């Protein structure tokens, strides 16, 4: 993962999505108007967050099976980076909701669910800081993380689909695939999503490497 081709690929993909996202054709939809272009920027934040939380839970499972410190460090840094993307997603979502749904925080199941999920992951970080002993901390937080991940999926992706939500794809609301009949937006959206996931993973690995250096220095001291 130390090579740079995938980092450049991520940058190029997001740059392409910025250019085509602003200049490319989009369907003219009621209420949404030009803000439909936010799909290229707001939604990939959540995809990047999801990818990072997934990486975190994989490393937590690996820690429990092999108990190597590095796996635990990767799990933390993935959550640290994921929370940043989550906060950006919440902020951009609030701005978009204010202009289209008329409120910064319409009590939407998906919005509320993602807020609760964010608190759950913040609790993960608090839990880590509360535990002094290194091995105990790694083990307990790994188990917490494994429980938090499926709850996050239920809160953010399953529950909103079962009730009425302002977000597309839930209740009587069509998915964006239905609204965007001729699928002009799909390739741009996927490019942006993959690009942002790559950039998120890149930032995560940078943090992980710094963490490893800190850890090494602490061991020497």
């Amino acid at each position: 993962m130390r090579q740079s081709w995938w980092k450049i690929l991520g940058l190029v993909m997001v740059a392409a999505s910025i250019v085509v996202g602003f200049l490319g054709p989009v369907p003219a939809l009621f209420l949404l108007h030009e803000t439909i272009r936010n799909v290229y920027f707001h939604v990939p934040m959540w995809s990047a967050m999801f990818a990072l939380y997934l990486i975190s839970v994989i490393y937590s499972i690996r820690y429990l099976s092999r108990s190597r410190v590095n796996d635990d460090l990767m799990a933390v840094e993935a959550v640290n980076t994921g929370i940043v993307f989550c906060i950006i997603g919440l902020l951009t979502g609030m701005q978009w909701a204010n202009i289209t749904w008329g409120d910064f925080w319409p009590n939407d199941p998906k919005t509320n669910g993602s807020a609760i999920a964010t608190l759950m992951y913040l609790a993960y970080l608090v839990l880590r800081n509360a535990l002094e002993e290194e091995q105990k901390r790694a083990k307990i937080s790994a188990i917490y993380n494994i429980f938090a991940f499926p709850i996050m999926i239920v809160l953010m992706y399953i529950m909103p689909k079962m009730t009425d939500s302002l977000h597309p794809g839930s209740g009587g609301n069509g998915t964006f695939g239905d609204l965007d009949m001729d699928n002009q937006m799909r390739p741009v959206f996927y490019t942006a999503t993959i690009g942002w996931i790559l950039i998120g993973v890149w930032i995560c690995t940078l943090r992980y490497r710094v963490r490893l250096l800190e850890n090494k220095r602490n061991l020497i001291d």
Partner: protein
Amino acid sequence: MIIMKKIITILLFCITSHYTFAQNQIEMATGLRSSGKIYVVVLVLLTIFVVLGVFLFMLDKRIKKLEK
């Protein structure tokens, strides 16, 4: 018959004109696009993004140096 035809055409006209009216109501930023000023926004965003990318690469290099 002629009156019927007239009524039908008027009705059809009403329906279609209403339809086109509804279509036009959705305001898109065609003005900004036709004046070409949207390119400035794209350029600004691209600049911000490229500089951030370069910054990330420099950070990557610094960490690589520290690792050695």
